[in-house]
């Protein structure tokens, strides 16, 4: 079975439907599957519910799908500095469901692992717990949260082989591995596409069983949301130049 598709549009062909639930990997603008997001915009699919920790920034990342008004609802932990998001939300055109970040991550992990619900201390005694079942374990209150499964997950990886085995780079890993496991169909964009055997099996983070389709994005744009630097006062080991797996 061939998993590699020639471009992002081909990798999403036949998968997109109005009103579907899509999980999109990334934290801020780090590790986002932006080539696939652009292909979703071009497809014109509408009324999407999107699960993603953040909602991009204006016109970047998921901000692209907010600009084009293809998103009906976001499930996120923090939507930060996105003017388009605020405008659409305040105009009643966009729904938001806030989940604590760890609860969101665990809902996705649980969904991918076939676990329909779990109990967490996070949010006990807050409005996040309202309407949810609560139980006491060992004298502590816990809130029941549901697992999440997506019609489609889109993820970004640093390296992948044609079998769909994925490796992520640094903090661009974030939500991508859980989302890969929680999609009924998972499409991965990979910066480096290699043959099976070229990735040490001990280094694979997402096994290929979770990935149905792959597209090679050698020139994917990467964005920095908050560029912070320090003065070069003395020679030091350069950051981020370590040898990768």
């Amino acid at each position, binding site marked *: 079975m061939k998993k590699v598709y020639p471009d992002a549009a081909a990798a999403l062909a036949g998968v997109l439907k109005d009103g579907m639930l899509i999980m999109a990997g990334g*934290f*801020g*603008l*780090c*590790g986002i599957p932006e080539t696939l997001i652009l292909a979703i915009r071009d497809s014109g699919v509408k009324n999407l519910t999107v699960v993603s*920790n953040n909602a991009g920034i204006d016109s970047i990342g998921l901000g692209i799908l907010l600009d084009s008004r293809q998103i009906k609802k976001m499930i*996120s*932990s*923090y*939507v*930060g500095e996105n003017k388009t998001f*605020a405008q659409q*939300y*305040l105009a009643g055109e966009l729904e*938001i469901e*806030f989940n*604590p*970040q*760890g*609860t969101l*991550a*665990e809902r*996705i*992990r649980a969904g991918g692992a076939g676990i329909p619900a779990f109990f*967490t*201390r*996070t949010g*006990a*005694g*807050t*409005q*996040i717990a309202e309407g949810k079942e609560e139980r006491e374990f060992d004298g502590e209150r816990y809130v029941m949260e549901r697992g999440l499964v997506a019609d489609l997950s889109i993820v970004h990886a*640093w390296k992948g082989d044609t079998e769909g085995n994925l490796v*992520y*780079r*640094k*903090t*661009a*890993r*974030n*939500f991508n*591995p*859980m989302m890969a496991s929680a999609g009924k169909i998972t499409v991965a964009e990979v910066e480096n596409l290699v043959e099976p055997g070229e990735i040490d099996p001990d280094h694979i*983070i997402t096994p290929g069983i979770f990935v149905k389709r792959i597209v090679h994005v050698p020139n994917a744009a*990467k*964005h*920095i*949301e*908050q*560029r*912070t*630097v*320090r*003065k*070069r006062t003395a020679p*030091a080991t*350069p*950051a*981020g130049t*370590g040898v990768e797996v």
Partner: protein
Amino acid sequence: MPWTREQMAERAAKELRDGFYVNLGIGIPTLVSNYIPPGMTVQLQSENGMLGTGPFPFEGEEDPDLINAGKQTVTELPTTSYFSSADSFAMIRGGHIDLSILGAMQVAENGDLANWMIPGKMVKGMGGAMDLVAGVKKVVVVMEHSAKNEPKLLHRCNLPLTGAGVVDMVITDLGVFTIDKKGVRGMTVAELAPGVTKDEIRAKTEANYQIDPGLN
């Protein structure tokens, strides 16, 4: 003189212990990393999936794949590890992080914390704050004592809670307050900033508190 932001961060750094794994929030808490005592080993956790967070990169060496939870470019250290968001919050929720230092809008005398939303205003979301306060072994809040002359240390928070009964210590510009969040002792004034009087604390604090015998 009340403490400055830097002095509040310096005071918060006294809660660090050798070998601690620590999560620092945005704002004054981030400054705490400037006051880690020489010779002490502390690993900073960034909830987006990094343990052993290094300093900001030199100009030209920023890496879009390497950011902290504030989305700022950072660097890695020899001790650094990377992991998924699920593993990151397993560390947090599972009680493996020793200390969380974060900001707040309001703290109540029973340890309730509000720092994520103001009804009627655009809500940005709670991010990882609810998980941190629910799971980390010790929670220290660093904040201004008052907001526009309104007290922030209250009997009960009137803003939506981030966590119920979660705060162990509050460091403001006026002093240090400890909270017996699981017990009955409530809030105690443990230290005063230089020149700050008990009368000033009384005038600017709504919460009930005891005064540490050492201050009498």
